């Protein structure tokens, strides 16, 4: 099995707020991330697919296809967007990096014609990233 990773970047804003909690609790739990005007990150997305190398093409997946799928399924809807306001997954869920990685996994898992999604990694900053592998 060979694992192939493609990287992409997108920039988005978000803030953390749970309407079920009081304003004080929101500030206590989420700290600076609770600022209602939001703040932003340059996210780095890494998508790793796993598979056997096709004997004729030498590919696990055509990188051009993977790039297009990532653009269509993820970047078009998230790059230069406000995650809370404009990305449907976060209408009732807090756009933490954990939930963002899960949302991206769910967007991609059935779209990779022939190849298999192994891992989605989302860097919020150089010092913080989240991995999901589709485990229940």
């Amino acid at each position, binding site marked *: *099995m060979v694992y192939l990773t493609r990287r992409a970047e997108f920039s988005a804003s978000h803030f*953390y707020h*749970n309407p*079920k*909690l009081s304003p004080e609790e929101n500030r206590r*739990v*989420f*700290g600076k991330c609770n600022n209602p005007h939001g703040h932003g990150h340059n996210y780095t997305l890494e998508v790793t697919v*796993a598979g056997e190398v096709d004997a004729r093409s030498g590919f696990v997946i055509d990188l051009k296809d993977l790039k297009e799928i990532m653009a269509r399924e993820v970047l078009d809807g998230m790059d230069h967007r406000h995650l809370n306001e404009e990305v449907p997954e976060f209408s009732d*869920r*807090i*756009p*933490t*990096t*954990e*939930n963002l*990685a*899960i949302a991206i*996994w*769910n967007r991609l*898992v*059935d779209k990779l014609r022939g190849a*298999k*999604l*192994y*891992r989605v990694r989302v860097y919020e900053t*150089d*010092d*913080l*990233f*989240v*991995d*999901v*592998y*589709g*485990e*229940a």
Partner: protein
Amino acid sequence: MKAYLTRRYKFSASHRLHSPEFSEQENRRMYGKCNNPHGHGHNYKIEVTVSGEPVADTGMICNLADLDGFVDREIMPQFQFSNLNQLDAFRDVVPTTENLSRELFHLFRDKFRLAKVEKIRIEETMMNSFEYAGGGQLRPVPNQEVYDR
């Protein structure tokens, strides 16, 4: 869905690689420059990986402020600007980065209770890194359900 969150920290420390199990000459041969009796130092980059299902109310595996607070309280005071050889953990253990990975893994696993600690990864320099998962797997095997699609 289970998620794995990795947070990166840095500390600077010195060490000397020297084992009483070997002669002076063997120590020099085995550890080379790292056997210099005066020691030397590194800027270590530490990655700790915790896992779990994000909590519905917060969207988080655990609050990063709690993880950062734990590191500020339990890790940095011991390790930042320390001489690793002087620490209790390395009294009878050579402070290689292999052994540092094990020590940090056990400190996190034993004392940080707010999420499952999966793994420690340390970059000693840009050119080498070490990972330890307490004997467990470093990363999940491919999800069979996804793989079978």
